């Protein structure tokens, strides 16, 4: 497919998606939604890596995206395990209630 879009639009789109993720991390109290916003930020960066990979005609950028996906999967598995453990102890996943490391 012939792509005639300037790289600047991809930069702009990634910046907007990253900002939405960052605002979500700052503005929400539910830990799971904060987690999802972090995924959104990771995806904004992935999109930028793929667009630069296409710009330079180099497959390395896409390989980096694979590794980011693997690390994101590991992060989500461990993070959700921690969250379910916190929920078991505190009966809530509200970030404003998680002020103590140990009870």
């Amino acid at each position, binding site marked *: 497919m012939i792509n005639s879009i300037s790289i600047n639009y991809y930069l702009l*789109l990634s910046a907007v998606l990253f900002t939405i993720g960052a605002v979500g991390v700052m503005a929400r109290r539910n830990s799971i939604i904060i987690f999802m916003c972090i995924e959104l930020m990771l995806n904004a960066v992935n999109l930028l890596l793929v667009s630069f990979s296409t710009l330079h005609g180099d497959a390395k950028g896409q390989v980096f995206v694979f590794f980011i*996906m693997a690390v994101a999967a590991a992060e989500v598995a461990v993070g959700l395990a921690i969250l379910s453990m916190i*929920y078991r102890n505190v009966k809530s996943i*509200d970030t404003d209630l998680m002020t103590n490391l140990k009870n």
Partner: protein
Amino acid sequence: MLGYTITQWLFGILSFLAIMFALMVVFSRNPVNSVLYLVLTFFCIAGHYILLNAQFLAIVHIVVYAGAIMVLFLFVIMLMNLNQNDEPQKTWLSKIIAAVAGGMLLFVFVGSLKGAEQLNLTAYGSSQIGTVKNLGKVLFSEFLFPFEIASVLLLAAMVGAIMIGKKETK
């Protein structure tokens, strides 16, 4: 159509949808709705990957993110009984501060792009770099060691998740 090619139309529509769904992730009250909107955002990003000639990555993105990670999120939300609309919200002051901080972040991003050179993606791009054959060659020759390390990382994450998630027995 108005001087735009079909690729540019697709880019515009996909970008608009991705930004809208991303905003809905942040603003919807119910966490289950947030997860579903995030899945739709991921589909839009996969469409962008197809536009960028990264066909294999688009499929992997849908399978890994929409298929595995978001299902994990849904499971945890259902287990915790969080599918309610009346969860506690931050105060308006902190929400406004978050919006202002995000606006400033976006301002910095856009300001750093100002005056950048306009490079079209057809400049060097070949349509063959996103195929399975080409990616496999790069992944299993140049990035073989990081690939093996990634498997160790996934194993460690799996063991860690099980260790953290199991009930404490004293």
